[in-house]
C-alpha cells in the first residue's frame, strides 16, 4: 500500500513519461548534434528513474523521512488558491479593482473576519490604497474592466 509519497512518485512518473514523449516529438538528435528534445529527454529519464526509486523504497517498506499527517490540502488553502485562479481568469474582464475587492473580502473571510461591514470597509480601503499607489503615484495603468466608462 502506497502512501502520499508513493502517489507523488506515481504522479511524477507520469510527468516524466509526458516529458520524454514531448522531447521525442521535439527531436532528440544525436550526441554530437543534440536536438531541442535532448536535454528535456535526459531530465525526464532521470525523473522517471528517481520516481521509481521513491515508489520502490516505499513498496519495500523503507521510509526516508516521516511525512506529516493530516489533510494534504486544507479547505482554506484550496479556497485561497481557487480565488487566485479566478482572479487570473477575470482580472482583465472585470478589472483589477473589482477583482481585488472580491479577493480581499474572501481572504479576510477565510482568515476569520466574519462581520460584513468590516469586510466591506477593509476591501474598499485596500482598493483605494492600491488605486492611490499604483494609478495615481506610480501611474501604472491597471485594467479597469467594468469600471471603464467613456472618458477614462
Amino acid at each position, binding site marked *: 500500500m502506497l502512501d*502520499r*509519497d508513493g502517489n*507523488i512518485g506515481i504522479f*511524477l512518473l507520469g*510527468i516524466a513519461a509526458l*516529458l520524454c514523449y*514531448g522531447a521525442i516529438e*521535439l*527531436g532528440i538528435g*544525436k*550526441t*554530437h*548534434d*543534440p*536536438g*531541442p*528534445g*535532448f*536535454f*528535456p529527454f535526459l*531530465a*525526464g529519464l*532521470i*525523473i522517471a528513474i*528517481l*520516481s521509481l*526509486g*521513491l515508489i520502490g*523504497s516505499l513498496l519495500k517498506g523503507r521510509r*526516508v*523521512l516521516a*511525512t*506529516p499527517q493530516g489533510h*494534504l*490540502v486544507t479547505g*482554506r*488553502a484550496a479556497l*485561497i*488558491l481557487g480565488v*487566485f*485562479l479566478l*482572479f*487570473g*481568469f477575470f*482580472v*482583465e474582464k472585470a478589472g483589477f479593482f473589482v477583482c*481585488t475587492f472580491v*479577493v*480581499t473580502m474572501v*481572504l*479576510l473571510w477565510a*482568515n*476569520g*473576519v466574519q462581520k460584513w461591514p468590516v469586510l466591506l470597509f477593509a476591501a474598499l480601503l*485596500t482598493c483605494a490604497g*492600491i488605486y492611490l499607489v*499604483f494609478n495615481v503615484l506610480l501611474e*501604472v495603468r*491597471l*485594467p479597469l474592466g467594468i469600471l471603464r466608462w467613456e472618458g477614462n
Partner: protein
Amino acid sequence: MDLIQNLFFGFGVCLQPINLLYCFLGVLIGTLVGVLPGIGPPGALALLIPVTGQIRPESSIIMLCGIMYGAMYGGSTTSILVNIPGEAASVMTSLDGYQMARQGRAGPALGISAFGSFIAGSLSIFGLVLFAPTLSGFALKFGPPEYFSLMIFSFAILIFVTGGSLVKGLLMALLGIAMGTIGLDPHAGVNRFTFNQPALMDGLGLVQAVIGLFGVSEILVSLETFVQGEIYETKVKGLLPTRQDWHDSLMPILRATGIGFFLGAIPGIGVLIPTFLSYGLEKRIARDPSKFGKGFIAGVAAPEAANNAAAGGALIPMLSLGIPTGASTAIVLGALMIQGIQPGPTLITDNPQVFWGLVASLYIGNVMLLALNLPLIGLWVSLLKIPYYLLSVLILLFCLIGSYGINYAAADILIMTIFGFIGYIAKKQDFELTPMVFGLVLGPMLENALRRSLVISSGSFAIFVSRPISLVFLAMSLSFLIWNFFFKKRATTMISED
C-alpha cells in the same frame, strides 16, 4: 593599488543619491522582512524584481542585496524578543537571546547582535573584495565542460546540505531543470512545451515562480501552523554591551565570521548551517558549556555574526562564477539576467559599476543597518503586534499585484498560483523548494553548457572526465552524493546534537 582605485570607484557609484536611496530602501525592507514572520527574503526579493526592471542594474542589485543582509539583522529582533525567529537564520539566536530578554537583558542582546552583525558584515566585505576578483580570474579558464561540472557540483552540495531525502532533493532539482526548458530553444529556435500559449514562449518566468513558491505557499502553510507569539513585556534599555559582554563576545564574533564567510561561499550551504556550526563550536570550546541556552551573550553574538558573514560570502560564487549559493542569490542572479547582465567571470571587468558599486554599498548598508536597528527597535517590536491574519492577507495581495505587475498579463497570475500550489504540497511533504529554484535558474545554463560541450567533443561524454577541472568537480559531486546516501543520517544527528 588597483584595489584601492576600484574601491574608490565603487564608493563613487554607491554614494550617488539615487543609489544611496535604493541601498536604504533595501536594508529597510530587508529588516522589515526579517522582523515580520510569513515572508522570507526569497519571497520579498521576487516581489521586488518587477520594480527593479525600471531602474539601473547597479541600483537594483544594491537594493536586492540590501534586502538579503538586512533580513539577517531584522531576524534577530523577533528571535530575542518573541522567541520566534523572523528568519530561519536566526533560530540559534533565540536560544540565548530570548533567555537574556527574560532576564531583563534584551538591550545588550539586541546590541551585541547588531554590533556582531556589523563586524562580521564588514569583515566579509574585505573577504569578498579579496577573493571574488581572484576567483573570477581563475574561472576565465573555464570552458563549457568545466561550467557544466561546476553546476552539477552546486546541485550536489545543495542537495547534500538541505534537509530531507536525496531522492526528493534530486527530484525537485530535476523538475526545476525540466520547467526551465519551457519556452524558446535558443539553439534550434523552436518552441518547447509551450502548447501555443504566447505567455509561455519566453519561459515560465522566474519571478512568478518564486513568488508562488516562497510567497504564496509560505503563507498557506503558515496559516495552518502559525501561532501569534506573545511579546515578552520588557523595557529595551541599555543597548550598549558592557565590557564583560564584549570580552565574552569578541572572539566568538571573529570565529563565527570566519566560519560564516567560508561556508557561505560554498554553493548550496546558505546562511543557516554556519549559524548552527558556529553556535556548536562556541559551546564545545567554552570553559563552561552549561551557560549556553541560559542567556549567555556569546550564544547570541556567534550565530548573528555567522549569518551576516555568510550573506557576504554567498556573493563570491554568485558574482565571480555566476553560481548561486541559495534561493536568495538565485533570485538576485535572475534579476541580473533580466537586466541583460550575464553573471560570471566577466561580470567584474564588463560591469565594474555593478560589482564595485555593490561592494561599497555593502559597507554603507551595514552602517545604515547599525543606525537603523538600534534606535528603531521599538518600531520593529510594535510591528510584531499586527495580527498575522491581516499580515497574511496583505502579503497575498502583494503576491497578486507583484506577479501581475511583471508583464500586466493574467497568465502570470495563473503561473504564480500553480507554483504556489506546488510549493504548498512540496512543503507539506518535505520536498525542499530551493533545489527547484536552482533548477529554474541554472537549468538553461546547464543545458547550454552540456550541448556546447557535446558539440566540442563530437558527441563524446568523455570530455567531462578528460579535463582536469571538470573531473575534480564531478568527483567531488559524486563523493557528496555517495556521502549523502550512506552517511547523512549520522552527520545530521551530530549537527543537531550540537
